[in-house]
C-alpha cells in the first residue's frame, strides 16, 4: 500500500467521521469545529490530487473566513449551549432513512457505471498549480470572474440591508 493510498484512506475516514460528528454534536460550536476538520480533510484530498491552489483556497476561504463567520454568529447569539430543540424521534428516523436510501440508490446506480478502469491522477499533473489555473481564469473565465465580484457586492449589500432593517425595527 503506497503512501498515497494510506493518506487517501486516512483522509476519507477523517472526512466522513468529522462530517458525522458535525451532524450529531449537540453543541453548535463543536459542530463548527468538526466542520473545520472536514474542510481540512478535503483540502488534504485536494493536495493528494495535486490541486494545491484549491487546497489553499479551501482552507483560507472555508476554514478561515466562513467558519469564523459561523463561529461569530454562534457566539453572538449565545447559542453555544445544548439547548437546541430536538426534532421528534420519528422525524429523525425518517430523515436518516431517506438519506440512507438516497445513498443506497445512488451507489447502486453508479456501481455499474463504466468508470471501473478510470483513474484520477494523484500526485502528478500541473493543472492544479496556481500558474495554470490563473491563466485559465484570466483568459477564458475573465468575464465570469468579474461577474462573481458583482455577486459578492450584491451579497454584501444584501447582508447590510438585512442587518440595517432590523436595526431600524429595533429602534
Amino acid at each position, binding site marked *: 500500500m503506497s503512501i498515497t493510498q494510506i493518506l487517501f484512506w486516512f483522509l476519507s475516514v477523517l472526512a466522513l467521521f468529522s462530517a458525522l460528528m458535525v451532524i450529531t454534536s449537540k453543541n453548535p460550536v463543536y459542530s463548527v469545529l468538526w466542520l473545520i476538520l472536514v474542510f481540512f480533510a478535503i483540502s488534504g484530498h485536494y493536495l493528494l490530487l495535486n490541486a494545491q491552489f484549491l487546497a489553499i483556497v479551501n482552507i483560507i476561504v472555508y476554514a478561515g473566513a466562513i467558519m469564523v463567520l459561523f463561529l461569530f454568529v454562534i457566539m453572538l447569539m449565545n447559542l453555544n449551549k445544548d439547548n437546541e430543540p430536538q*426534532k421528534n424521534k420519528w*422525524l429523525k428516523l*425518517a*430523515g436518516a432513512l*431517506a*438519506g440512507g*436510501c*438516497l445513498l443506497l*440508490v*445512488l451507489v*447502486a*446506480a453508479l456501481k455499474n457505471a463504466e468508470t471501473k478502469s478510470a483513474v484520477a491522477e494523484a500526485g502528478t499533473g500541473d493543472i492544479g498549480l496556481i500558474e495554470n489555473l490563473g491563466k485559465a481564469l484570466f483568459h477564458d473565465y475573465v468575464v465570469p470572474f468579474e461577474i462573481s465580484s458583482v455577486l459578492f457586492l450584491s451579497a454584501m449589500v444584501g447582508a447590510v440591508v438585512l442587518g440595517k432593517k432590523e436595526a431600524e425595527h429595533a429602534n
Partner: protein
Amino acid sequence: MQNALQIVWLVPFFPLIGFLINGLFRKQLSKSLIAVLGSGTVLVSFVISIWIFLQVKNGNSHVAEYFNFISAGPFKIPFAFQIDALSSLFLLIITGVGFIIHVYSTSYMKEETAEHYGRYFSYLNLFIFSMLLLVMGANYVIMFIGWEGVGLCSYLLIGYWFKNTEYNKAANKAFIMNRIGDLGFLIALFLIIAKVGSVSFADVFSKASTLSTTNITIITLLLFVGATGKSAQIPLYTWLPDAMAGPTPVSALIHAATMVTAGIYMIARSNVLYSLAPVSQNVVAIIGLATAILAATIAMKQNDIKKVLAYSTVSQLGYMFLALGVGAYTAGVFHVMTHAFFKALLFLGAGSVIHAMGGEQDIRKMGGLKGKLKITYFTFLIGCIAISGIPPFSGFFSKDAILLSAFGHNKILYGIALFGALLTAFYMFRLLFLTFNGSFRGTDEQQHHLHESPAGMTIPLIILAILAFAGGFVGIPELFMKGGDKLSEFLSPVIPVQQGDGVSSSTEMMLMVISTVLVLLVIIYTWFRFRKYQAVEEKGLGKFLANKWYVDELYEQIIVKPLNKLGAFLNNIIERSVIDALVNGVGKLVNYGSRQVRLLQSGQVGSYVLLMVLSMLLVFVIQFFLRK
C-alpha cells in the same frame, strides 16, 4: 344479359311508398285516398308478383344484387333479392292475401278518424314491406332485417289502439317474446358468419356439407329458436293469442299471410341445413306436434271467437313444423298456403261477426247468426270445413300430406297428429255452431243491430272462400291424379322432391279414409253436443284447458317474478350499496384524501425538505432502475 327479374325491387318498393305517403301525410290525406293508396300499392305488388311467379314457373330464377349493404374487409354482404320457386310462392301469398285484407280493412276500419286510418294503413304497408323483404332476401341478413321489421310492425299493429293499457301490454308481450326468438336467430347468424364466412343462401347451402354435424345442429337449433318466437311455437307461443288485441284484419294478416309464416319460410329456406341435422329435425317435429296438440286442447275451451282462431293458428303452425321436422318441406309450405287462405277467411269472417255484434267477441253471447249473416256464415262454414280437412277442400290435401309424411316417418307421430286433427275439427265446429246455430243469446239491442257486413268486407270473404275451397288442387296426391302434385314440382328447384315415403298406395288410401271418417264423426258429435248451448261451469280438465294450461301463470311464476325480484334486488341492493356507494365513494375518497394531503403543506421547512429528498429518491429509482 340483364335478367328480367332484376326489377323485383319494385315488389317491396310499392308498399314502402305506400307506407311513406300514408305515414307522413296521414293528416292531410282523405280517408278514401288513404284506402286507395294503401290497397293500391299492394295490388301493384301483387300484379308484379304474379308476373314474377310466371317467370319462375318458366324456369327463370335470379339473384338480383343491388349494392353492398355491409362491407368489412373481405367480408361483404350484398343487398340482394333472391327470386326462386319458394320466394315467388310466398310473394304471391303475401301480396295476394295481404291485398284482400287491405280491401277488407278499408270497410272494417271505417269508423276511425282519417289520421288513425292513415296510421293503420301505413303500418299495414310497412308490414307487407317487411315481410316481402324477409322472403325476398338473398341472404340471412336481409332476411333478418325483414324479420325484425315484421316484429316491429306486429308491435305497432297489436298496440294500434294504444290508449288501452291491456292492448299495449299485449303488444309488449308480442315484441318481447319475438325478441327472445330473434336473439336465437341473431346468434345463429353470427355462427354462420363465423363458420361459413358468408351469409348468402347460395354460399351457405353449398358449403353446408363441409361443416361438422355439431355446428350445423347448433345453428339449426338456434334458427329454430328464432322460428319459435316468430311462428309462435312452444315455449314462445303465448304472445299470439294475446295479439288479438289488434284490429281483426291485423290478426288475419299476422296469422295468415305474414309474420307467423316467417319461421316456416326460414326453415323451409334452410332445408339443406336441416336435412344435415337429424337432431334438429326431431326437435322441430316434436315441438311442432306438442304445440299442435297443446294449442288444440286450449282452443276447445276458449269462448272468445278470436282466441279460438288464434289457438287454432298456433295449432296449425305446429302441424307445419311437424311437416318441416319430418322432412316434408313441401307439405309444410303447402299447408302455409292453404292455411293462409282459410285462416284469413276465418279471421275476416270473425271480423264480420264482431262487426255485426257491435264489438262483442264472446261466443257464449252469440248464436243463431246464420239467418242474418248469410254470406259470412257460408264462407265461415267453408273455412271450417277446409281447416278440418274434409275432401276436396284445400285443408284436406295439405293436412293429409303432412299426416302421410308423419306416418312414413314415425307411426306414433302420426297417431298424435291425427288426434290433433280431430281436435281441430271439434273446436272449429264448436265455434261455428255456437256462433251461427242455436238461438241468439245476446242483448236485444245487439239483436236489433245485427246486419250483414258491407260489400267491401263480404267480397274478400267470397274470394277467400273460393281459394280455401280450391287452393288444395295445386297439390293433389299422385294417388288420385298422375302429375297432380304441381306444387312439389314447382318447388323442386329449392326443395328436393322426396323419393318415396315408404307408404304404399293402399295404405295411403286407407289413411285418408280413416282420417276423413273420423273427422266427420267428430263433426257429427259436435253438432249434437253444441246444437243447443247451455252454459256450464268448467271444472277439472275443462277448467285447466280454459285457463290455457296455466302457461301464462307458469311463465309469470318462473320467469317474470324471479326477474322482478332480481330487478328489485339490483335496484335496492346493488344500485344502492354498490353503484351509489362507488359513485359517492369517489367523492368521499377525494374529499378525505384532500383533507389528508392538505396536512403535507405544514409550512415546516423540515418536512418540505424531507419530501423533496423522497421525491428525488423516486426520480432516481425510476431513472436508474425502472426505465429500461
